[in-house]
């Protein structure tokens, strides 16, 4: 092929992406900003085969219709090489068909829906990144099955693919165990609070509470349970992984005891983890933040997420070779292994091969204790289905 | 008698249309002055100019001081204007209208004054809580007058107070105004189409024609004036 690949020049690669810079989901803009910062860092260290990565992200306000037009703009007008790491499930679903139709890579979708890996055959230009919500739910299930035999579980979940996938995973993890999900209550993103759901869950007589909710609602759930004097034995949440500040908020400076002992998973480095202060990887992260995202709140793990994805993208571009084409990138991702990502937990490998197209499938469990997360146990790996 | 209100070469316009082309008139303290004229002559606009409801040029002096600002300033200076149409606060109750009439005054004796209004207009007490906007046309007209009197003004400006009122009430209203004028020295500037009754109560009168003063004089003079008789009194 001649060197006329869109977005690729002798000295540059243009990546594009959408992100909610405005509206209710605007916290996730941090993902794009983190990635941008890492690309700057990588560029200053020579880029990829001498090509600097220009990462251009545009606002979609988490509205899929805008994602479509914004993505078209990136491809048709800005001639980007690939779409990279746009957050959101519906938003990415909206453009997946079109991207694959146009053979444009939809690289490392920032969403844990199962469809990215599962439907790889149909949409080979699309790849996921993080552990799927199913995988995460499954880990919680396995953990409860092992350590809390006989307990009765109540689940609060968001009424969309995100919550439902987590719930599905949890149930799979609990299969053939003596732990039962005895109640599950959904909430809508348009709700103002979840007190009603928590009251219902409590009335079910459950002794374990699982929160598959976004940070605000998870925090509210702690508070609501506390207010009606419900003290379930175990609390599990995924939301904490998204922001540790939210756990601080939930615990109200330690006054809400329910928060202590909460279980969550983790696959990213936690920038606030005390033990990693001296860790070189964390040092690198903080340096990059300071230099390329000054003023941003470096404690927000969403920046880590963006950097982890960007780091992986650089590896993938390297593997795609000097004669970079969209096809060569997709081929490179078909069988792909990247170890030593400084923004993922040590030991976690980004890996795809054969039918398995979920890049990250390993994670650690951690527990909230006395104001911070403590990881425990070894890496869990979701068995490829 | 000194002039309480003086207009000197006052002009006003609505967009491109010049409604007042230099009005000069004088309202002596303690007198009743009538403004007459055909429809569209600028009578209403003259009153609006005084109370600042329209942009105006020229000099307006009230109690020796130049009058500036909008209607609220005029009200605060002691001018009560009962505008053309009704001028009640339609969404408020009758009593609330009266209370607001006394808005610029210090608290005292508001209740006593409300009672006085009830004497003038006996229907007021039983309708105290009725929303002003649902009163009949004439009732609203009376309420507007009562509201204006509540402020105990130095100058009362009435724009066609007789419109929509029953003949009996018209006479009653003018007798109230005369009485207040005689007993309390209330100064009144009244625009009226019923020239007969206007000239009965007013000491002096001005006749406007397309935005200027065409004629002025004492009521007696005007009553005797052939032209006035023919065009305004019809005999």
């Amino acid at each position, binding site marked *: 092929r001649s060197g006329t690949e869109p977005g690729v020049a002798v000295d540059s690669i243009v990546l594009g992406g959408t992100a909610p810079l405005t509206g209710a989901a605007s916290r996730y803009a941090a993902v794009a900003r983190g990635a941008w910062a890492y690309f700057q860092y990588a560029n200053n260290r020579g880029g990829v085969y001498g090509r600097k990565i220009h990462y251009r992200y545009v606002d979609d306000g988490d509205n899929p219709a805008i994602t479509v037009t914004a993505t078209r703009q990136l491809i048709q007008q800005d001639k980007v090489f690939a779409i990279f790491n746009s957050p959101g499930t519906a938003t990415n679903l909206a453009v997946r068909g079109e991207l694959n139709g146009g053979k444009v890579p939809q690289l490392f979708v920032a969403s844990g829906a199962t469809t990215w890996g599962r439907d790889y055959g149909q949409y080979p230009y699309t790849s996921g990144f993080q552990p799927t919500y199913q995988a995460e739910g499954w880990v919680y299930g396995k953990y409860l099955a092992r350590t809390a035999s006989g307990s009765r579980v109540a689940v609060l979940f968001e009424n969309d693919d995100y919550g439902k996938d987590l719930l599905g995973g949890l149930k799979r993890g609990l299969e053939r165990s003596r732990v039962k999900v005895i109640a599950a209550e959904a909430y809508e993103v348009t709700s103002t609070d979840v007190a009603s759901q928590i009251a219902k869950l409590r009335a079910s007589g459950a002794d374990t509470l699982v929160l598959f909710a976004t940070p605000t609602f998870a925090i509210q759930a702690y508070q609501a349970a506390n207010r009606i004097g419900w003290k379930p034995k175990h609390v599990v949440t995924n939301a904490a992984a998204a922001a540790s500040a939210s756990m601080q908020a939930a615990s109200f400076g330690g006054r809400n005891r329910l928060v202590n002992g909460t279980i969550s998973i983790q696959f990213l480095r936690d920038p606030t983890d005390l033990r990693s202060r001296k860790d070189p990887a964390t040092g690198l992260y903080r340096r990059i933040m300071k230099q390329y995202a000054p003023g941003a709140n470096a404690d927000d793990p969403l920046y880590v997420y963006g950097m982890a994805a960007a780091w992986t993208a650089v590896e993938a571009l390297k593997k795609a070779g000097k004669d970079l084409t969209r096809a060569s990138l997709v081929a490179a991702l078909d069988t792909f292994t990247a170890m030593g990502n400084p923004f993922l937990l040590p030991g976690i490998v980004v890996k795809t091969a054969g039918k398995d197209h979920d890049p990250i499938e390993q994670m650690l469990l951690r527990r909230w204790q006395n104001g911070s997360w403590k990881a425990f146990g070894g890496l869990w790996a979701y068995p490829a289905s | 008698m000194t002039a309480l209100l003086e207009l000197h070469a006052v002009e006003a316009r*609505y967009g491109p249309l010049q409604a007042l082309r230099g009005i000069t008139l004088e309202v002596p303290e303690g007198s009743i002055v009538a403004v007459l004229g*055909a*429809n*569209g002559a600028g009578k*209403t606009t003259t009153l609006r100019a005084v109370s600042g409801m329209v942009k105006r040029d020229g000099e307006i002096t009230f109690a020796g001081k130049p009058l500036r600002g909008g209607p609220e300033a005029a009200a605060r200076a002691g001018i009560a204007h009962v505008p*053309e*149409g*009704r001028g009640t606060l339609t969404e408020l109750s009758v009593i609330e209208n009266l209370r607001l009439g006394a808005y610029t005054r210090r608290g005292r004796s508001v209740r006593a004054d409300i009672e006085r209004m009830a004497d003038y207009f006996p*229907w007021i007490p039983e*309708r105290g809580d*009725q929303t002003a906007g*649902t*009163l*009949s*046309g*004439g*009732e609203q*007209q*009376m309420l507007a007058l009562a509201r204006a009197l509540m402020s105990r003004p130095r100058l009362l400006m009435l724009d*066609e107070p007789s*419109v*929509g*009122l*029953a*003949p*009996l*009430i*018209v*006479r009653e209203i003018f007798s109230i105004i005369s009485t207040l004028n005689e007993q309390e020295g209330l100064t009144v500037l009244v625009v009226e*189409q019923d*020239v007969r009754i206007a000239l009965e109560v007013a000491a002096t009168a001005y006749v406007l024609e397309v935005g200027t003063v065409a004629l002025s004089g004492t009521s007696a003079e005007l009553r005797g004036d052939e032209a006035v008789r023919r*065009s*305004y*009194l*019809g005999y």
Partner: protein
Amino acid sequence: MAALLSVEEITLRFGGIVALDGVSFEVEAGHIAGLIGPNGAGKTTAFNVITRLYAPDQGRLEFDGRSLLETPAHRIAEHGIARTFQNVNLFTSMSVLENVLVGGHRLGRGTGEKEARAMLEYVGLGVRAGDLAASLPYGLQKRVEIARALAAKPRLLLLDEPAGGLNHEGVEELGDFILRLRDDHELTVLLVEHHMGLVMRISDHVNVLGSGRKIAGGTPADVRANPDVIEAYLGSEAGP
């Protein structure tokens, strides 16, 4: 001559206020009928009942032998009744001409600009056709309302204080105009007015309301001489 409009025993209350209390009167075809009474007597309310803006609590209402009580307000025009309002009620963002065109709404697509313009000429507003209705002086706005009402080609025209705010000359003209109107358009007119000179001069018949009740009815001369009317409304020194 048979009655064109008959109002029978109409009662209407607003909460505790009895605005109309068993009021009955008739208007004969071709007449100019005056409806007078003190402020708050219920005259405008009677208009509102006749035009179905208000539903009476009791009573019957017949126009040309048919009951109107089942007719919704917007069909009243179709029956041939049009009105003006005591406080001018124009379509303020429209031109004078458009106001009149809306008046002809019930006649369907047929009524064109030509007739509306003719109507404006008739009321002496031909040159103001293009002006914004709200920019006219009060007196002229009242005339626009009359033109708008006439555009519906009514058989019965209800006028609520048309002389309000007119000067002496204007009132005289208005009287002549109403008389001419009746003859030119074969109209019946029900006239609410406080200007006694006008009412007495042009009415064929006058009804008097007081506090929601009918207190008198008859020829202008009868009514003027009626002591109840003098007491409640005219006062002892009734005008000419």
